[in-house]
């Protein structure tokens, strides 16, 4: 029998490592699609359901904003708790303080503000104003937005493949926007889609910022910091600012605080906790895939949540999926994969056999 060389053994080990990374990438997409669907379902539970049932006009708009922010805060708070539990079990708790003292750690904090209060708020507002089946595909175009921003601000040159991907994402977005919905799309459909686009921009800028220097950090720790800082930023800055704005603009205080506090003892609480759990672990798998199989593959697998979101909404919320919506989501997913999958990164940096 021929004995294996150390190189052959290590190649097999690396292949296993890369396969685990691919599994993590697939899981990140599935869990994010599921998380969006679950968070969208929270609107049907108390105290959110009765708050929106008896209101109209400005009061309804205020309440919807409050509900979405409530969801965003609770999502990031629960995600940070779940990730912290995971990190404590892995014996990494001391890494939080050590990482926060470094420059890459501080960049993650800045990225958290872009991705949390801007990205996550826009996303949850989108899910609240329109259906998750519409909001998820739009946000999945974030790699295309990142490619455009990198070209404008960092003067990055992209190959034709990336621009084909960007065009597919734009076409897909139009297909999604104009996809028919059973019944009325609601008074806030357009504003919901605009806010979803804002989420897409927030996540793209977070990605651009976090990538630089992030490769030195443990992804689980970077994630824990990201979610924790985001939840704190909501409590310290976003809630007071939105409350003051709504009070000044519409003349009455929004029930944001009441809803957040009310959620803690209500039937919506386990929904948000479960949504945060799914979202948190989607991030864990996403960051892990980045480290194990490379940015390109990981991103390409993660953006499949555009399709998972439509599928889960159809399966679990009674939402009627149309062929046009599915085609739009598919076009965005394929476009985002084309933007992400850079063969140079796949074969040079990662050396995946």
């Amino acid at each position, binding site marked *: 029998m021929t004995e294996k060389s*150390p190189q052959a053994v*290590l190649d097999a*080990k690396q292949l296993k490592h890369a396969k685990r990374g691919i599994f993590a990438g697939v899981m990140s997409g599935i869990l994010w699609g599921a998380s969006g669907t679950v968070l969208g379902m929270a609107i049907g539970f108390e105290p959110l359901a009765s708050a929106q049932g008896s209101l109209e006009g400005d009061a309804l708009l205020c309440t919807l904003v409050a509900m979405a922010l409530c969801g965003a805060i609770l999502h990031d708070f629960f995600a940070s708790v779940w990730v912290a539990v995971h990190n404590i079990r892995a*014996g*990494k708790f001391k890494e939080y303080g050590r990482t926060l003292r470094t420059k*890459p*750690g501080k960049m993650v904090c800045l990225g958290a503000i872009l991705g949390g209060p801007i990205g996550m708020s826009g996303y949850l507002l989108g899910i609240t104003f329109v259906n998750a089946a519409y909001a998820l595909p739009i946000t999945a175009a974030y790699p295309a937005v990142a490619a455009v921003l990198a070209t404008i601000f960092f003067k990055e040159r992209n190959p034709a493949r990336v621009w084909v991907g960007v065009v597919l994402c734009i076409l897909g977005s139009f297909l999604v926007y104009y996809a028919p919905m059973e019944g009325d799309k609601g008074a806030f459909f357009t504003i919901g889609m605009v806010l979803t686009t804002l989420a897409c921009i927030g996540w793209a800028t977070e990605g651009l910022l976090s990538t630089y220097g992030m490769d030195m950090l443990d*992804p689980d720790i970077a994630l824990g910091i990201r979610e924790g800082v985001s939840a704190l930023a909501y409590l310290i800055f976003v809630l007071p600012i939105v409350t003051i704005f709504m009070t000044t603009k519409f003349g009455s205080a929004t029930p944001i605080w009441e809803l957040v506090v009310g959620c803690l003892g209500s039937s919506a609480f386990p929904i948000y906790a479960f949504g945060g759990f799914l979202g948190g672990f989607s991030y864990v798998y996403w960051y892990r895939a980045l*480290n194990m199989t490379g940015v390109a593959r990981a991103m390409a697998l993660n953006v499949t949540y555009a399709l998972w979101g439509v599928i889960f909404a159809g399966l679990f919320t009674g939402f009627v999926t149309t062929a046009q919506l599915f085609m739009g989501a598919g076009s965005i997913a394929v476009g985002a994969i084309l933007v992400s999958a850079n063969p140079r990164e796949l074969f040079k940096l990662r050396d995946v056999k």
Partner: protein
Amino acid sequence: MAVLPLRFRILHIVNKAAGKPLKTDEIYKELYDEYSGEGQFSLDLMESHLMSIKAVGLIDAVDPYFDELGEARYKYIITETGTARTKYLPAQL
């Protein structure tokens, strides 16, 4: 000086070797006094940290060999990208 994140120190040690490939257990031994007792610090997990740091292009794996327990391992060497990232390490290291 305050203890740094584990991956910062791994990168620092591989960079300090100035082009000499380092074995996993050499890096592990050098960091033992700082990180022993933490759940994230073991020889197997060290290998996993190294593979991840390699995956993002900061270090390279060279010279495969079998260690004394018959386990196939690489030696690790700093890359150009890794050297550029050392600007984030504290100057007093």
